[in-house]
């Protein structure tokens, strides 16, 4: 019985808990972290319950807030797609929260901790809400909630973070307003805000130019939030200068949820034929993705700061997802959805590792990683897993989503995109083996046979357990996702892809 309420609870619980946490922190700061973790665990339970329910029922769950029937009331609709995303978000958020404790205690002034945890919860609230809601305007509000908390916690970061955050505010607001404009256009045309209702109404006015304009506004708005290529300019600064824990939370989740929104709008709200047959949206997206990936790879090659490199990598990864969307067939979309989930784990893995390295050595410069494999072997092991996953080495999960993307591009006969996929994975290999080389190999002179064990002075010096555990769990997740990607597709994703494909 209570399980029917999960769709609301998963949004409301973190919301209320964030304020309670804030109040509690006034007299006992040490309670903050347990509350955070407990709340996220609850959310995890809710998310899994929802997914279980969706798989059991086999059709979307509709939850009417306040008992008002749609299209008048706000409705939360959970189908296979967003149930999957919910679970992924919940898991990653939980792991990152576990990881965050030690990092923030080192990086932030302890008077800032309560705010951090509060904003953490608000962020998660926003993400859950965006994923769960079935109402266009409600989505806007939750998008803004997520964005505010993002602005605020990013601003807590190192020197220059506040400026980056301000830029993010400007861009984010443009994005949100563009999205709102899109909502406005749709509202004028249809008089409805409910996604399912819109899906019914829109096909009648396909040839209406205003509809196209609204669609364009949607794309631009969400595109800014998710950082697709030409609209990504805020992303590298903001995510690089943010505190490690923050970028470990935002980088995996926020952009991917944006990708989810794009899929939702293109394939649920607007009928797929709108962007496939009616207008050459897919071709445009394909070109954007191709150029974006090329650009992002080049920029990433130019970086010596590991975190900034990863930030450009995010842009590339979003490009992959867009490629999956642009190939506009079952295989490609499967790849895109799978990549949303996989990429959450991959980015979480890499960013947590960067945070750990910062935590121990205080540097992010790739060329100062010498001897790191002696001091922090576990962290580097996790990093290698993540790196190989991004490069696309099976059985890490990155390979499998790439596999479906490739199949999709082949089926769509989009050879340019296929080439981009293959070439970019090579560039990723260069990127990461550059790091691995610096971290693992210790260049020495000709015929230098160091006595075994090399430099005994350099001894093990790892990060705290909480961080290690969460990082290891993420790495394990990457491998498991890879091996069992077939199961996920069989039980969830194949229902998430629109039936018309």
């Amino acid at each position, binding site marked *: 019985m209570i399980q029917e309420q999960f769709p*609301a*609870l998963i949004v*409301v619980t973190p919301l*209320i808990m964030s304020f309670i946490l*804030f109040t509690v922190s*006034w007299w006992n700061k040490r309670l903050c972290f347990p509350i955070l973790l407990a709340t996220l665990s609850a959310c995890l339970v809710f998310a899994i319950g929802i997914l279980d329910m969706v798989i059991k029922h086999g059709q979307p769950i509709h939850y009417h807030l306040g*008992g008002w029937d749609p299209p008048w009331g706000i409705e939360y609709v959970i189908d296979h797609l967003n149930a999957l995303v919910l679970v992924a978000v919940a898991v990653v958020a939980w792991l990152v929260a576990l990881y965050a404790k030690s990092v923030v205690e080192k990086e932030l002034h302890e008077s800032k901790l309560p705010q951090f945890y509060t904003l953490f919860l608000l962020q998660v609230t926003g993400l859950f809400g965006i994923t769960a809601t079935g109402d266009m305007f409600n989505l806007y509000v939750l998008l803004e909630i997520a964005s505010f908390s993002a602005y605020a916690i990013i601003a807590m970061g190192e020197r220059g973070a506040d400026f980056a955050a301000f830029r993010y505010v400007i861009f984010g607001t443009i994005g949100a307003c563009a999205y709102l404009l899109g909502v406005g256009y749709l509202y004028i045309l249809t008089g409805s805000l409910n996604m399912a209702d819109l899906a019914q109404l829109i096909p009648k006015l396909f040839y209406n130019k205003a509809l196209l304009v609204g669609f364009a506004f949607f794309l631009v708005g969400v595109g800014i939030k998710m950082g697709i290529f030409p609209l990504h300019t805020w992303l590298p600064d903001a995510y690089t200068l943010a505190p490690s824990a923050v970028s470990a939370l935002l980088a995996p989740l926020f952009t991917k949820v944006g990708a989810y929104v794009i899929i939702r709008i293109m394939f649920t709200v607007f009928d797929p034929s709108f962007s496939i047959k009616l207008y050459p949206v897919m071709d445009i997206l394909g070109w954007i993705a191709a150029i974006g990936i090329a650009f992002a790879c080049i920029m990433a090659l130019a970086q010596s700061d590991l975190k900034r490199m990863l930030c450009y990598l995010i842009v590339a990864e979003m490009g992959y997802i867009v490629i999956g969307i642009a190939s506009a067939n079952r295989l490609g979309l499967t790849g895109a959805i799978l990549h949303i989930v996989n990429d959450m784990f991959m980015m979480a893995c890499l960013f947590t590792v960067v945070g750990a390295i910062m935590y121990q050595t205080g540097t992010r410069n790739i060329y100062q990683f010498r001897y790191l494999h002696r001091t922090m072997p576990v962290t580097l092991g996790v990093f290698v897993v993540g790196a190989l996953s991004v490069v696309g080495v099976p059985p890490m999960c990155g390979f499998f989503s790439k596999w479906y993307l490739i199949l999709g591009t082949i089926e769509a006969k989009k050879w340019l995109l296929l080439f981009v996929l293959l070439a970019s994975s090579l560039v990723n290999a260069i990127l990461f083996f550059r790091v691995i080389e610096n971290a693992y190999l210790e260049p020495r002179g000709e015929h230098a046979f160091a006595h075994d064990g090399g430099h005994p002075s350099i001894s093990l010096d790892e990060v705290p357990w909480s961080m290690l555990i969460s990082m290891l769990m993420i790495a394990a997740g990457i491998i498991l996702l890879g091996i069992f990607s077939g199961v996920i597709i069989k039980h969830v994703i194949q229902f998430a892809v629109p039936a018309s494909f």
Partner: protein
Amino acid sequence: MISRWEDIIIETLSRFLVPFMQIYSLYVLAHGHGSPGGGFQGGCIFAASFVLLVIAYDIFEAKKRFSEKINGIFCALGVFIYTGIGWLCLLLGGNFLDYGKLSKILPTDPVMARYYGMAGIETGVQITVMAIMVSIFLDLATAGRHEGALEEEDVGVDSK
């Protein structure tokens, strides 16, 4: 702005005005579902009264009456009322915020139960909005320094 600027007229006038503003905000709240108005507006008006205090007197004076801590608690309290009512409906077997179900514990029929439920929600909203507005104002005014972290140098250039 956050410094003291003695002016007998302004001080008296504002001291005279503040209660009326607060009463008016409560009116806006209570009348929210019979006429334009409601929690947001009421909350803003209520917050305005504090802002007036700060402007007329100075920030320390205002904080004596309404400290950051209380503000924070209020802010949580509002949300708590809001979601609390939601949870209540939920526990009574309805959906989240399904006020109709409140009739089970209120001595009224579902229609009036909705009425009261909304009233409660609006109250929560008002409290939160008020607290948030005040805290935004204070944060900006004190440049984010909480809890008496204000030293003399923060008291703006136009002091004395």
